[in-house]
């Protein structure tokens, strides 16, 4: 391995984050290259320095009041968050079911009102008479045609 290649790998090697094969190759180079060895030493020293500083710093802790307040916030959330498994539907499933219901409702309304097919017979018509209701989508005008059983035109009603 060349120095250039090794120096690219030194940051990871310094923290033991290279695989065994590349690690061995870097170590072989380090053993015989004082300048790369020095650079490795600097990486390790910097890491040790910041780790020690982090350990000493420790970081902040919660005050008892902050912790108690958080735990108190969690309790009321319990009823909505921890539900029995059967009720814990994913959002997409609930949305799909709702969408399907809405779609069916819209379709049934459309076809009930607009289909120009046979409708119920006129009260005046006999059992062998059928009616067709035609509705203009532009004006809303309705015309009902009455046909006999041979589909001969028998009259109309607006």
């Amino acid at each position, binding site marked *: 391995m060349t120095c250039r290649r090794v120096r690219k790998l030194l*940051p990871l090697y310094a923290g033991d984050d290279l695989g065994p094969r590349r690690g061995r190759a870097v170590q072989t180079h380090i053993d015989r290259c004082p300048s790369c060895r020095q650079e490795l030493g600097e990486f390790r020293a910097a890491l040790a320095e910041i780790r020690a500083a982090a350990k000493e710093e420790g970081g902040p802790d919660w005050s008892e009041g902050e912790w108690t307040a958080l735990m108190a916030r969690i309790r009321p959330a319990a009823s909505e968050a921890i539900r029995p498994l059967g009720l814990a539907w994913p959002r997409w499933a609930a949305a799909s079911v709702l969408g399907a219901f809405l779609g069916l409702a819209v379709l049934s309304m459309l076809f009930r009102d607009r289909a120009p097919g046979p409708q119920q017979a006129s009260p005046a018509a006999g059992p062998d008479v059928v009616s067709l209701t035609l509705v203009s989508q532009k004006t809303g005008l309705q015309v009902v045609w009455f046909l006999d059983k041979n589909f001969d035109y028998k009259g109309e009603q607006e």
Partner: protein
Amino acid sequence: MRMNETEKELVTMVLSGRTEAFEPLVSPFRQPLLALAFRLTRNREDALEIAQESLLRAFRSLRRYDVSRSFRNWLFQIAANEARDRFRKGAREKAAFNDIVGRAPAAADPEAGCEKQELRSNIMRSLDALSPREREVFVLRDLEELDIKATARALGCSSVSVRVSLSSARRKIREAIRQDFAHLEEGR
């Protein structure tokens, strides 16, 4: 580090509706979680908000928790995501990353003002040289001592991506320490 039996029992209790078991479940991690958030933000108020939100999220998502994983790492993953969401929103990013110089550490310390503490704080400020991604990776791998795989899992990225960011982060940290604390290097 896998979940231990006590943690498993506590998770089961919470999921069965005994929510009072949540506090003993997360109590051992209350300080480490806040410390992680603090290392990611260098601001106690932001860190506290992130830690609080992370625990609320953990509570709400407990059913999705995979018990084969370390509970601590799972909490850290939530906190890292929470911190990243905040950075992305951008409202406090500048303050969190650029407005550090001159800010006293928030944690009360009886040794405040002494030389050692100042040196320690200055060393920790070398984290400011890192990008948000590099900082996440560096904090989780080098300060919280997660391995590469666990770090990748916590951040939702590949091990290769973690190695790339980690390499760059260590290079910047070494450079910052070498420039600002040459006397430490010389003393070795």
